[in-house]
């Protein structure tokens, strides 16, 4: 499914007794990348979890416009989300290819080009290696492959460049740019070291 835009209106988030942000407004259209910036604990991850639908906003709403109309339903929005959290979501006992196959089936997408996808993120030689033997950077690359395999239009990325070396960062940046080029939206909690994002939001 294609996405046209995502709009946050007067969004507020409360964690425990602490208000992280209030009255937050932003609008992202297809093909744009938004960098969410802020100090540690400012609420970057919470904002991503709000958009994904894991958290309910204390106030305000998030509207997503697709070809089928506009909706603020969190469950519907979740079906559009490609998620890359600060945890990679990988099982140490499973091989890289098995992980990718599992997530491809979970998202009901084609499995045929998964080895090519692994090669694309530089993990062709590690395809049959259990994930416990992968380095932090390699795990991040595998998480990127999982994200690419999900074919979701709205990417929510929490510190996507963490643990990646220079070539890995470049790979991530290219993937983000390519996703935006194909009409997707990227919202990333990052300090945007590569200047990729068209817009930035300071929390």
């Amino acid at each position, binding site marked *: 499914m294609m996405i046209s835009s995502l709009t946050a209106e007067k969004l507020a988030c409360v964690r425990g007794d602490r208000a992280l942000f209030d009255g937050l407004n932003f609008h992202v259209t297809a093909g744009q990348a938004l960098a969410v910036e802020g100090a540690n604990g400012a609420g970057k991850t919470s904002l991503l*979890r709000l958009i*994904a639908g*894991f*958290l*309910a906003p204390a106030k305000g709403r998030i509207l997503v416009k697709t070809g089928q109309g506009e909706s603020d339903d969190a469950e519907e929005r*979740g*079906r559009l*989300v490609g*998620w890359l*959290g*600060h*945890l*990679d*979501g*990988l*099982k140490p*006992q*499973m091989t890289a290819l098995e992980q990718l196959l*599992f*997530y491809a*089936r*979970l*998202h*009901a997408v084609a499995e045929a080009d998964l080895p090519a996808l692994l090669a694309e993120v530089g993990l062709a030689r590690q395809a049959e290696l259990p994930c416990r033997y992968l380095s932090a950077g390699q795990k991040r690359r595998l998480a990127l492959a*999982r994200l690419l395999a999900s074919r*979701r239009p709205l990417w929510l990325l929490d510190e996507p460049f963490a643990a990646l070396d220079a070539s890995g960062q470049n790979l991530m940046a290219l993937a983000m740019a390519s996703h935006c080029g194909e009409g997707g939206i990227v919202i990333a909690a990052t300090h945007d070291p590569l200047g990729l994002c068209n817009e930035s939001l300071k929390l």
Partner: protein
Amino acid sequence: MSVFTTLLLRDMRLAGRSGGSAVLALSFFALVATLVPLGVGANLNLLSRVAGGVLWVGAVLAALLSLDRLFQGDFEDGSLDVIALSPLTLELTALAKICAHWLSTGLPLTLLSPLLALLFNLPGTATGVLFISLLIGTPAVSAIGAIGASLTLSLKRGGLILPLIILPLLSPSVIFGAGAVSAALDGLSPGSALGLLAAFATASVLLSPFAAAACVRLNLSS
């Protein structure tokens, strides 16, 4: 392959690989069933009288060993976030995990039970009833266990609290299961006890995915 089957098969594969929660459960069950006759002594009548209760309690405790990891592994490594965003609802996710737990733990325990019943001098008919009662009742252990596992998901020592939450809820299955074996030993029909056990298990399997999904949702938002 459906999304449901994909998750179920992955969980079963992980249960088989991670040092084998199934192997751990079977070993624990076999040890309990071996130690009790050694402790009670060679009183064959007494052993056959207590067999139903001991084997049922042993099976429940053995199944508990792997229950705390039902959702926790996925929660800790971030997989649960990705699974929650898949086309599978959290209710069906919980059901897939319950099925995977039963297939990798409850079913092997049930299959082992006739062998362990020999240690208790349990007659053939009563052994058959024990087997059927475990076959019917162990899905309830996985289902109710899933509620406890999802409730204690974000707790550091959730595995310790889990038995305290779910063992009282599992008492009907132990009562009906052991009751069916006792009825068979006394030459009575185990039908009513097995019927009640089946009703309890059906209700557990049908309702617990909703409760477990609600608890997972709560933990994902924390």
